[in-house]
């Protein structure tokens, strides 16, 4: 299953840059996503009396709306292009990585936890650090991208390399 994307990577990258510039102009902030997760967590569990809430409440609510938009945007574009596919395990997981269906849920859970925990430790994720911070040539964001890449390479080699087949 090697379906070609509807948007070329260079076009998508350029459009992301334009969208980020628009966000700077109209919202006076960069694009970001990871703060939405502790924000939702704090809304669901308001019992936590904490110092973190005041740091994330403004960004967090913006990012929640941003991600709701992203979710709907993907529903619309996948419906229009007929690429919507309801699955619990991507084909790639079983065919190319030779992993079991059951393990997918466990990995998704473990990975999702580490993903947000790590992003909050560093103060950003792919959107806020790599894309928005990277295009501003922020030292912090380029430093983050370097270590995220190292972490990903190491773990990909430990878990998937032996199992991988084309």
């Amino acid at each position, binding site marked *: 299953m090697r379906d070609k*994307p509807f948007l*070329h*990577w*260079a076009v*998508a*990258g*350029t*459009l*992301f*840059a334009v969208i980020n510039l*628009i966000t700077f102009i109209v*919202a006076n902030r960069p*694009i970001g996503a990871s703060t939405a*997760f*502790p924000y939702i967590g704090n809304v*669901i569990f308001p019992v*936590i009396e*904490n110092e*973190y809430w005041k740091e994330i409440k403004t960004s967090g609510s*913006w990012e929640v*709306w941003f*991600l709701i*938009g*992203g*979710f*709907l*945007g993907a529903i619309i*574009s996948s419906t229009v292009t007929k*690429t919507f*596919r309801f*699955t619990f395990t*991507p084909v790639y997981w079983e065919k190319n990585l030779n992993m079991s269906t059951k393990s997918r849920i466990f*990995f*998704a859970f473990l*990975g*999702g*936890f*580490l*993903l*947000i925990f*790590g*992003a909050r*430790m*560093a*103060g950003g*994720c*792919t*959107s806020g650090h*790599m894309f928005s911070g*990277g*295009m501003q*040539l*922020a030292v912090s964001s380029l430093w983050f991208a370097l*270590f995220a*890449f190292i*972490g990903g*390479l190491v*773990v*990909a080699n430990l878990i*998937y390399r032996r199992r991988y087949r084309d």
Partner: protein
Amino acid sequence: MSTALVAFLIGLGFGAIMQLAQLDRLAKVIGAFLLKDLTIPKALLMAMGVGAILIYTAEHFGLIHLHIKPFYPVGVALGGLIFGAGMVIVGYCPGSMPEAVGEGRMDALFGIIAGIIGGVVFTIIFPVYESSFLHGAVIGKPTLSDLLGLKGTAKWLFSVSVGIIFIILAFVLDKVEKKYLNRTH
């Protein structure tokens, strides 16, 4: 327009682009770290390159302000390592999980739920973390041009040049990928 509506509309465009370019797919994330499919690194470099040109030009002419994140080398590096490990295990990014669910990949929903739990745990740990050696000292909010002490036109031209280098690198990666990595497409 309300702030929420603006965020929602920007997200709408962002999500559609991501889905149409397949950047929200597990295969693309894991493929990138196995050095088999460089779609995401290429798109990232392209966005950084074009973005640097646009953002620094807009900033030079006073249209926008930069929003630079604080640089605390220890915490950012540790967070980056954990984040990268998490990304390869879950197969998505924080900003791509909602899109993945939107196109029917329900495994990403478990990632979202776990991410919210991760956010809660981090909230609890935050006061301890922030003052610990794992976070470490904050060394301001530098950009590459700050490191070189550039200002005004020199800063603008330097940043645009770095942007152009990023774009060239994206196309170099594309050549490398086509030549050596995956002869199947």
